[in-house]
């Protein structure tokens, strides 16, 4: 249920490629919409969670991209789901590789 926006001096394709790698790490399914540059990662269910959905939107700028990461539980009433954990994990990974800057 968290949302963050980061700026990277990289191309959208590089970010998408990194996100695909990250989704493999967390054994999640990934869907990429090449037209809208939107990526959807679905995490697998666990004992306390039916899974989480992380949506990443990539906006192209002249010298880089703005990446919006939003994480929510897959089932709205799943109060023990922890989408923020995945939000943190994905942004940390992205920043360790591409050195981003938080916006807002």
């Amino acid at each position, binding site marked *: 249920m968290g949302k963050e926006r980061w700026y990277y001096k990289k191309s959208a394709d590089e970010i998408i490629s990194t996100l695909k790698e990250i989704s493999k790490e967390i054994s999640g399914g990934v869907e990429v919409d090449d037209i809208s540059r939107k990526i959807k990662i679905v995490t697998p269910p666990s004992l*306390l969670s039916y899974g989480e959905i992380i949506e990443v939107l990539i906006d192209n700028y002249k010298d880089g991209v703005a990446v919006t990461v939003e994480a929510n539980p897959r089932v709205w009433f*799943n109060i*023990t789901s922890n989408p923020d954990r995945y939000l943190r994990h994905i942004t940390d990974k992205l920043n360790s590789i591409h050195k981003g800057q938080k916006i807002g």
Partner: protein
Amino acid sequence: MVRIKYLNVKSSIGIKMAQVFISHSRHDRELVNNIKAIIENLGHQAYLYEYEAHPYDSSPDTEIMNEIRKSDLVFTFLTRNVDDMPHTKSWVISEVAIARDANKRTFVFEYENEFVSFPLPYLTDYMILDKHSVQDILTVQRIAKKSLPQTGLPPEVGGGVLGVILGAPFGPLGILFGGLGGAWLGSTLRPSGTPEIPFLIARCLWCGMQYNYYSPWVKKFPCPKCRRYLELR
């Protein structure tokens, strides 16, 4: 001519209701309405047909036969009103014969010290009622409850479903523990210690008829099948 039929077709969430065929005289309406209410309160339906209202009506025998075959139990109330009306008396005997043919459990109820004069060819259970005793009506209710299938969901299932709903926000583990916990709590809600119905198996020394007898405190009574007096030892 309109036939008077009282058939409660209340449905209970898809679970088949049992039916009790009540053989009676229309003049015993107060008693019979109490019994009908008892059966309906248990979630089942009662079927009653009154002959005296339409003695010259076209023969309802096929309908009566079908309803008895459809019923789970037959309750026969033998009172002075039945004894005094030849038409009713013959129909009551005929209904009992149909119940025997259909192998239905047939309960016969009579008032204490108001035994009818005619013998009944068949019965499986017998109770002598005190006309003024509410306790006896409650005993009839307990007998019906024990003899008819339970309606509605068992409390374990209801508790389990509620537990699953309450546990769902906590994920698959919540569903598991919620369901198990709910089922356990539901089982604790099941009424326990329901008083047993006092009865004994009576066997007539004269006609050899054997039936469950629910009024063991009445020691001397005429056997409903042969009308010769029995004395309990």
